[in-house]
C-alpha cells in the first residue's frame, strides 16, 4: 500500500485528508458516523478571543451546487476550547488544528498565545479570509501588506507549524501567497469561501441576515483548483487545498494541481462519512497508478 503520510514541520497527517474549519464542528459531531482516528487531521471551528454569538438567523442559503453561509464565527472563545473542548478530543490519534481568528492583530495574537500553552496542538491555521465578520477577517486576507503583517506578528509567537488560510476574493492570490510565505508561514491553505449573495425574489429580500455570505461547495471547485495551481507555481511551502471537494477524484485533482493535503468542507454536511471514502479513493488511485507515496502526485499535473 502506498505511503499516505504528509509532514508539514511539526504536523503529521497520516493521510492527506483533513476536514475544513467550520464544517466539522470539533469532530465530536461526527463520532457517531466514523472513527475520527482515521482522518489525517481535523481543522476545528474558528476560534476568537471572546465568546461570539455569530450572525443573526438566517445564516444559510442553498445555491446551485453550493451554499452560502453567514455563520459569523459563532464560538465560545479560545479559553472554552482549551479548557472544555480540547480535553475531550485530545486523545484522538489525528491532528487537531485550531482555526485562529481576530478583528485586530492583537486579537489574533491573544488567541495564538492561549493555544501556545496547550500541549498536543502542533499547528494553527490563521484565518485571514472569513467573509462573514464585520471587522478583521477577510479584510486581512485581501490586502498583501495586512496579510503579511498579521502573519509576521503570529510567527513571532507561534513556533510550531503555522498555516495561513487565504481568501479567494482577490485579483492575484499568488501575490498574497508569496507575501505570507515571506512572512514565515509554513504552509498556506486555500481557499476560504467566495463572497456571494442570494435573494428571495418574491419577498424582494436577501436570504441571509447579513445580505452577503460565503460561497462553498462544488460550484467553486474550478476556481479553487486554478488558485491552488497558480500558488503552486510561486511558493515553496506546502499547500493545503480545498473548495468543493466531494469525492476522491476531486481530492486527487487538487493534489495534482499542487496540494500536499486537502480539506473536505461542505461535503461533510451531505455525507458525514465522505472523508473516509476519499481516503479509500486516494489509496486506490495511488495503487492503480503505481505510486509509492501520496506525495508523488503533488503538483504532477502535466501541462
Amino acid at each position, binding site marked *: 500500500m502506498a505511503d499516505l503520510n504528509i509532514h508539514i514541520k511539526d504536523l503529521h497527517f497520516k493521510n492527506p485528508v483533513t476536514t475544513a474549519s467550520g464544517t466539522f464542528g470539533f469532530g465530536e459531531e461526527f463520532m457517531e*458516523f466514523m472513527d475520527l482516528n482515521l482522518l489525517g487531521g481535523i481543522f476545528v471551528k474558528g476560534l476568537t478571543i471572546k465568546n461570539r454569538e455569530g450572525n443573526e*438567523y438566517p445564516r444559510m442559503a442553498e445555491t446551485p451546487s453550493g451554499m452560502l453561509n453567514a455563520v459569523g464565527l459563532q464560538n465560545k472563545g479560545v479559553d472554552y476550547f482549551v479548557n472544555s473542548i480540547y480535553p475531550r478530543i485530545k486523545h484522538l490519534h489525528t491532528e487537531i488544528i485550531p482555526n485562529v481568528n481576530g478583528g485586530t492583530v492583537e486579537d489574533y495574537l491573544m488567541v495564538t498565545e492561549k493555544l501556545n500553552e496547550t500541549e498536543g496542538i502542533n499547528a494553527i491555521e490563521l484565518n485571514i479570509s472569513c467573509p462573514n465578520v464585520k471587522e478583521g477577517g477577510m479584510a486581512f486576507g485581501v490586502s498583501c501588506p495586512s496579510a503579511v503583517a498579521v502573519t509576521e506578528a503570529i510567527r513571532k509567537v507561534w513556533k510550531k507549524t503555522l498555516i495561513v488560510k487565504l481568501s479567494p476574493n482577490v485579483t492575484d492570490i499568488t501575490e498574497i501567497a508569496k507575501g505570507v510565505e515571506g512572512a514565515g508561514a509554513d504552509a498556506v491553505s486555500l481557499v476560504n469561501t467566495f463572497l456571494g449573495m442570494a435573494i428571495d425574489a418574491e419577498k424582494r429580500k436577501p436570504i441571509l441576515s447579513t445580505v452577503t455570505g460565503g460561497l462553498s461547495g462544488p460550484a467553486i471547485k474550478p476556481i479553487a483548483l486554478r488558485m491552488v495551481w497558480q500558488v503552486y507555481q510561486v511558493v515553496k511551502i506546502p499547500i493545503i487545498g480545498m473548495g468543493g471537494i466531494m469525492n476522491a477524484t476531486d481530492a486527487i485533482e487538487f493534489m495534482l494541481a499542487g496540494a500536499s493535503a486537502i480539506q473536505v468542507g461542505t461535503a461533510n454536511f*451531505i455525507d*458525514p462519512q465522505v472523508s473516509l471514502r476519499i481516503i479509500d479513493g486516494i489509496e486506490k488511485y495511488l495503487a492503480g497508478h503505481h505510486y509509492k507515496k501520496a506525495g508523488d502526485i503533488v503538483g504532477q499535473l502535466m501541462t
Partner: protein
Amino acid sequence: MKQIRDFRVKAYDRLNEDNYIIELGCDEELPAIKAGNFAEIQVPQTADVFLRRPFSILDADHKNRSLKFYVKAIGKGTRKLGELAEGTKVNLIFPLGNSFNTDHIRHALIAGGGSGIAPFILLAKELKEKKIKTIFLLGARTREDVFLADEFAKYGEVLITTEDGSLGDKGLITQHSIFSKHDFPYDKIFTCGPDPMMKAVARIAAKKGVNCEASLENMMACGFGACLCCVTETLDGNKCVCTAGPVFDTKYLKWQI
C-alpha cells in the same frame, strides 16, 4: 445512535395536490425513535437540490422497518420527493434532534398549524401509551389544508379552526374558544406550525402559566450540529435547532412575545 442509511420508496399516500405521506422502507432494524425526532433526507434524481432536507418523522413501523413522513410540497426538494418511482433509493441520516418532554402531564393540548402536524402522530402515541389525556387543535387556512384529522381522532378529541370557516371554528388557532373559556384544564401545550402562530400559542401559554414546547423548522445545512446555520436565539445565546432542538420550551426562546 445516528444512522446513515439507504431506504427505498415503498408507497405514497396523496393527501391532495401539494401534500403527501411518503413511506420509506429499509432492510435493517430501526433504531429507537422518539416523538420530535427528524431525519435529513437526501432528495435523489434532481439537479436542483444540493443539500439534504429535514423532515419530522411522522411514524415509525419497527416491525416492517419503515418510516413515514408527511410532506408539504413547497419547493424543489419537496416536489421532487413526491415524484419518485417505487423502489427508488433514498438516503437518510436519522434519528436527529431532541424530543418532546411528556413527563408529569395530566392533560395535554396539541396545537398544530398548517403543515405543522408531522411530529404529533408519534407524540400522540406516546401520550396515549402514558395514558395522558390529549386534545388536538388543528388550525388551517381552509378545509383543504386540514390533514390527518381522522388519524389524530384515534388519540383524542380533535378541534379544528379554519381562517375561512370552511371547517370547524372560523378564525386563527389562537382564537379558538378553548383559550377563552374560563376552564383551561391543560397543563402542557405542544405546538408546531408557522412561527407567528407558535409565538401566539406561546404567549397564551405564558399568560396561563402553562408549560409549552414548540418544534421549530429553521433552515438547516447539516442537521447534526456541524454547520451552526440553524440557530435560534435563546436565553443562553444562539442554539442550534438541529441539536438543542427542534423542540424547545418556549420560555427558553428569545421570542418577542
